[in-house]
């Protein structure tokens, strides 16, 4: 009988776990996550310190504006920089939100290039990524790391910097510079405003709000493998571990974008930005099959942007989506005609790399004369859905 009782007791104990609200467990205090580490607090100051640039007028926050989801505020294809803020750039500024889970670059088991920072994935960490803008001639345009550190020495927060990293830290420019980028990384990883997960879509996933009819139709088109097929690269579902979707699978794709003449470098017919295979990235120069492939960005906050794709070829979501579904059915809408009158598709790539463009998957797998994967009305629905990915949604 004793055995029976003990089994029943265990049964009752287990049964107890499945009911009730776990009232016996102490409630964890709702501590605000804004308690940044000392490094992150320094990073926050460095992030918005324009005095660290050659012009004295450009900080990280100038291009990655906190009130624009850490993306650009304007519709320029690429932001200018340099000592006089008139040196043209080459690529559109990405949002810095939701970068905290991006893995360092690697080739997946099936050979898919994956992860990394910068549009070509060449930086292995946020800290490494943070180095480039300080030194790039078309961005903050410092002559050297020493140059950056010399400016840092005059910053209001230099005492904090030395208190954290040692009084003599600024004597070694290499070390001091690496601490600056480390602090920036800490800020980007820790500060909740870089990954709030509070869009309407997040609340919808949690079952707290409903999407409007158009938004829901848009989501269905976004997910549908035969329609938008967007989720194939921009996953929209929670992970098996419950992780919120990032709307990127960190892979790279070659979309065959039209050449954007608003980027001044394109005036040189020999200029091509080939992403993974160069010229900015150098370690994959031999992988000609990867020429033209760029990182799939998150689509969170995409509706706050005014410039799309790595070369900023489009300024509206309508054009961006139209390009996806009509690129192959109506190439004349996107590409110029050659001297012979024939449309030159994928004209931002040298002819030998145009075969690298993704033409196999939905919605690209079409030819002129076929119906686009999405109609104009359907594109409008998808745009409505993409609007639900904007952070800071307040339930009316």
């Amino acid at each position, binding site marked *: *009988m004793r*055995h029976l009782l003990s089994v029943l007791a265990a049964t009752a104990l287990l049964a107890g776990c499945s009911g009730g609200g776990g009232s016996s467990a102490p409630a964890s205090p709702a501590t605000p996550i804004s308690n940044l580490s000392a490094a992150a607090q320094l990073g926050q100051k460095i992030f918005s310190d324009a005095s660290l640039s050659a012009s004295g007028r450009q900080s990280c926050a100038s291009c990655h504006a906190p009130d624009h989801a850490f993306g650009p505020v304007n519709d320029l294809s690429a932001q200018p920089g340099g000592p006089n803020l008139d040196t043209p750039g080459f690529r559109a500024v990405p949002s810095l939100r939701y970068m905290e889970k991006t893995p360092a670059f690697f080739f997946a088991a099936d050979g898919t290039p994956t992860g990394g920072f910068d549009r070509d994935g060449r930086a292995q960490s946020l800290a490494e990524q943070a180095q480039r803008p300080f030194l790039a001639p078309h961005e903050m345009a410092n002559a050297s790391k020493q140059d950056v550190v010399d400016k840092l020495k005059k910053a209001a927060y230099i005492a904090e910097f030395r208190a954290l990293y040692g009084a003599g830290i600024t004597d070694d420019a290499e070390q001091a510079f690496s601490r600056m980028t480390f602090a920036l990384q800490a800020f980007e990883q820790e500060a909740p405003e870089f990954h709030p997960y509070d869009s309407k879509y997040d609340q919808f996933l949690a079952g707290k709000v409903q999407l409007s009819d158009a938004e829901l139709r848009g989501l269905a088109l976004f997910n549908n493998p035969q329609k*938008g097929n967007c989720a194939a690269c921009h996953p929209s579902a929670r992970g098996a571990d419950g992780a919120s979707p990032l709307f990127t699978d960190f892979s790279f794709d070659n979309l065959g974008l039209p050449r954007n003449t608003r980027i001044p470098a394109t005036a040189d017919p020999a200029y091509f930005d080939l992403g993974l295979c160069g010229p900015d990235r150098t370690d994959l120069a031999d992988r000609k099959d990867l020429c033209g492939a760029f990182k799939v960005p998150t689509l969170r906050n995409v509706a706050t942007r005014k410039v799309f794709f790595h070369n900023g070829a489009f300024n509206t979501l309508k054009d961006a989506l139209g390009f996806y579904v009509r690129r192959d059915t109506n190439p004349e809408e996107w590409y110029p005609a050659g001297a012979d009158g024939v449309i030159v598709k994928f004209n931002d790539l040298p002819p030998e790399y145009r075969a690298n463009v993704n033409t196999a998957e939905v919605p690209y797998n079409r030819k002129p004369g076929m119906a686009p994967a999405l109609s104009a009305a359907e594109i409008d629905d998808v745009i409505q859905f993409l609007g639900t990915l904007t952070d800071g949604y307040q339930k009316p």
Partner: protein
Amino acid sequence: MKLNKKLIAVALGAAFLSAPLHAGASEKELKARMDKMAAELEELKAALKASMQKTAELEARQQQIVAAESNNASASTAAATAAATSAATATATSVATNVATTVATDVATARAETARSASGTILSGYGEINYNRPTKNASAAQTDIRRAVIAIEHRFDEKTKMVSEFEWEHGVVSASDQGESEIEQLYIERELNNGLRGKVGLFLIPSGLLNTNHEPTAYYGVERNFVETAIIPSTWREVGVGLSGDTAFGLTWDTGITTGFDLGKWDATSTEGRDSPLGSIHQEGQLAKSRDLAFHGALNWRGVPGLLLGGSVFSGKAGHNTEGFAANDARVTLYDLHARYTPGAWDLSALYARGQISNTEALNATFVGNPTPVPKSFAGWYTQAAYQLLKSGDYTLSPFVRYEQFNTAKSYAYVPQGLGVETGPDEKVTTVGANLKVGEGVVLKADYQKFKEDKSRDRLNLGMGFAY
């Protein structure tokens, strides 16, 4: 001492059984026999006494040595006297260790001898290798080491045992291969004083006919039937506690509280959930989410020889109160009714199973556009007839036919604007084939399966299986 009495009783019983009394035997013969038995009993007693003495001696010796080891100083002094060398300590320790080992082994052997009737470890296992050839697409023919299982059962005493099954599937298991290595059962069962059986650990849910009886020698056809893989997710096991008992009139009952399913694992982009809804969200004791536990109960009646009638129900929530999850109130419920009748050479069975997943509207809204939303209900049934046609020596040939009908997505929760997925028709599969048993442990199988809806799945199957 209790144990010894029991041993004697068992020995006596065995002796009586091995010496059947003939009605026509003479009194003299009978007396001679009784004398002989009395002598054997005396011998047995003596042997037992000797064994007990030996055990006591060995235990005493072992205690002495343990005591000596615990006192290093005195041990080394004694050793020094004996050996009178500078290496004496080391030698003594080594000698002491050897003696201790020998004694320990002897003690263990003696104990094992004494308790042989109650405890023991049994190694068993089963395995199957299958060949499938789709008749309309021979290039998809496949051969697979479906599973190899090693089972270890250890009986601690008459009432307590541990049951375990270790399984490998699909031949090769590594990060880049498709095989799986898994623990299929791992539980302790204890027979309680009132005749009930208590279980704790990872055990099979008593659902349907196949789940708890899934060795290849136990079922007809190369592949397990669809209803008991797609609807009942065989081999289905959960971690928890269970209680079983038998009542008069041949009724057996099982009940328990266990882990359940994790709906958070549902992948609307893959077809896995369409192949087996519960198979795609089972947890198998792998870091299983346990905020929500599940209840199960089963009744099986064997009141008429050859007949089994039974049913089961399993129910538990599957959201686990997960932060930011839209289906925390979802509940998985699965029930089945089954019957098996084995008159003479016939083996007839039938089964109906139905599963439900409730409160999935909000979750399925997040899956719009994807091919595999969570079904609201899924169900199936089959009926099967096998006949032992030939029996020659070790060989038994049993042809069989099975008809089954099932649908892994019979209905979906409401999704607005017609954005949901259409439910499909029930798939209907007819399987015709035969099992050729070689002895009791080996089976060769062949069958042909015809699909009514997706005709591309028609296939020929060959398989070998064994269980020991």
